[in-house]
């Protein structure tokens, strides 16, 4: 009974926040069309570390304008999936494309079209916030015009000349988000993006996801707290022991995922 009530209230919450039709409700012809336009397409993608398969036979299609949540227990392969997608890891088997570019053959093209916000943002402690972004802009081949705006956006304009060494974990996370804003690529990969962030920071991450969707991009977000992300995501994929539990055609909705997920949710 309690489970039923939770399902109804969560369904209402999802409907209120996310009134757009689900991509799964498209007609078969339209669905075929969107399949061809998948920004991320994985087919039997696997990754092995020594004898252990961290990712097994992953099949997934993510279309333009979609936000896909990826959940699962620790060590289930969520982060490995994102790291293979951003070309930080080579797949051991299977194939994958991002924006039509092969993850192995066209790795450089994939890198130009993805932004990856990892657990640790990978900043240089002895450089200031502004210098870190200037370095990122140069490495991305971008002009440095957007740096001030990106810092302003993440609430670090006042700390532009402060060395990152003195930043809290949350501030470093915000600076990592600023680097994503600088780039604004079609595919954004977020690994536990809410970690260390306050309410404003969480809303900032949500805005990044909404904006990526609005400009026709796709977001894959690894998240444990499904309740927090449920209003935003179009669907949720659960992973266990390196495998995706559901085939592509039957990926659960956020609500279904919440009800069916084996991942314990935080008590509120």
């Amino acid at each position, binding site marked *: 009974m309690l489970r039923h009530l939770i399902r109804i209230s969560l369904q209402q919450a999802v409907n209120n926040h996310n009134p757009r039709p689900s991509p799964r409700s498209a007609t078969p012809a339209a669905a075929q069309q969107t399949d061809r336009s998948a920004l991320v397409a994985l087919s039997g993608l696997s990754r092995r570390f020594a004898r252990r398969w961290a990712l097994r036979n992953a099949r997934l299609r993510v279309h333009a304008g979609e936000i896909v949540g990826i959940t699962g227990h620790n060590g289930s392969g969520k982060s490995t999936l994102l790291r293979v997608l951003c070309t930080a890891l*080579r797949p051991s088997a299977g194939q994958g494309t991002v924006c039509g570019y092969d993850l192995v053959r066209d790795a*450089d093209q994939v890198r*130009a079209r993805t932004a990856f916000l990892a657990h640790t943002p990978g900043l*240089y402690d002895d450089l200031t916030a502004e210098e870190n972004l200037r*370095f990122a802009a140069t490495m991305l081949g971008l002009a440095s015009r957007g740096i001030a705006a990106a810092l302003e956006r993440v609430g670090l304009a006042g700390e532009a000349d402060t060395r990152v060494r003195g930043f809290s974990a949350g501030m470093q996370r915000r600076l990592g988000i600023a680097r994503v804003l600088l780039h604004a690529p079609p595919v954004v990969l977020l690994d536990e993006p809410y970690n260390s962030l306050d309410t404003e920071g969480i809303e900032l991450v949500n805005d990044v996801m909404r904006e990526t969707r609005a400009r026709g991009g796709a977001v894959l977000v690894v998240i444990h707290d499904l309740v927090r992300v449920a209003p935003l995501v179009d669907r949720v994929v659960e992973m266990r022991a390196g495998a995706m539990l559901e085939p592509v055609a039957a990926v659960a909705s956020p609500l279904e995922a919440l009800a069916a997920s084996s991942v314990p949710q935080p008590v509120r």
Partner: protein
Amino acid sequence: MMSFATNIRRARAIAWKDLTSERRSKAGFNSVAFLGVLILLLFGFALGPDAERLRNAAAGVLWLAVLFSGVLAFNRSYQLELDGNALEPLLLYPGARWSIFVGKLAANLAFVLMVEAVLIPVAMVLFDVSPPPLWGRLLAVIGLGTVGFVALGTFYAAMASRSRAREVLLPLLLFPMLVPVLLASIEASSALLGGDAMRDAGAWMRLLAAFDVIFVTVSLLAFEHVIEI
């Protein structure tokens, strides 16, 4: 695809980033220069007070001091990336990987030359060596030797950076490969410090230049494969 000019800008940004981090932390330069001076002192004690013997050994001891302290510098160069888990983001920027090598090479070259700027005067005082008449050629030998040494050091430090035992692995990989550069640098420097009566230095310098071309070219071409995730 990024243009050549963009990749050169990326290399310049990496060199600037490494040198700025180094300048602000200071810990790297101070410890590396101190180690170099310490090595000179210890060799000086080991060789004894005989001025002639000290002068004869000066070039070899100086290059060994540069070699040992340089290894610390190469390890630090990648440690900067590993400390903040920044190596992976660095490799995930689109663009040619050679630009990362060129940037690291330029930063390491500047760093080792600065260490040499401290070690050479100290060595001249400790080992009772006067500036040679052909001091311009001696500087050229130091430059050529340093380029070959730093090119190989930067390359092998990238290879060792993924290993947990990188501090041990780097000298094991680097030192055997450095034998030709070290030999040519010591012979050319010794000849010039002794006045180069036999006109030996020119041949060693040509050999050093050839090693430099080979080492830099091969490192540039192979870097993409050793740094691949």
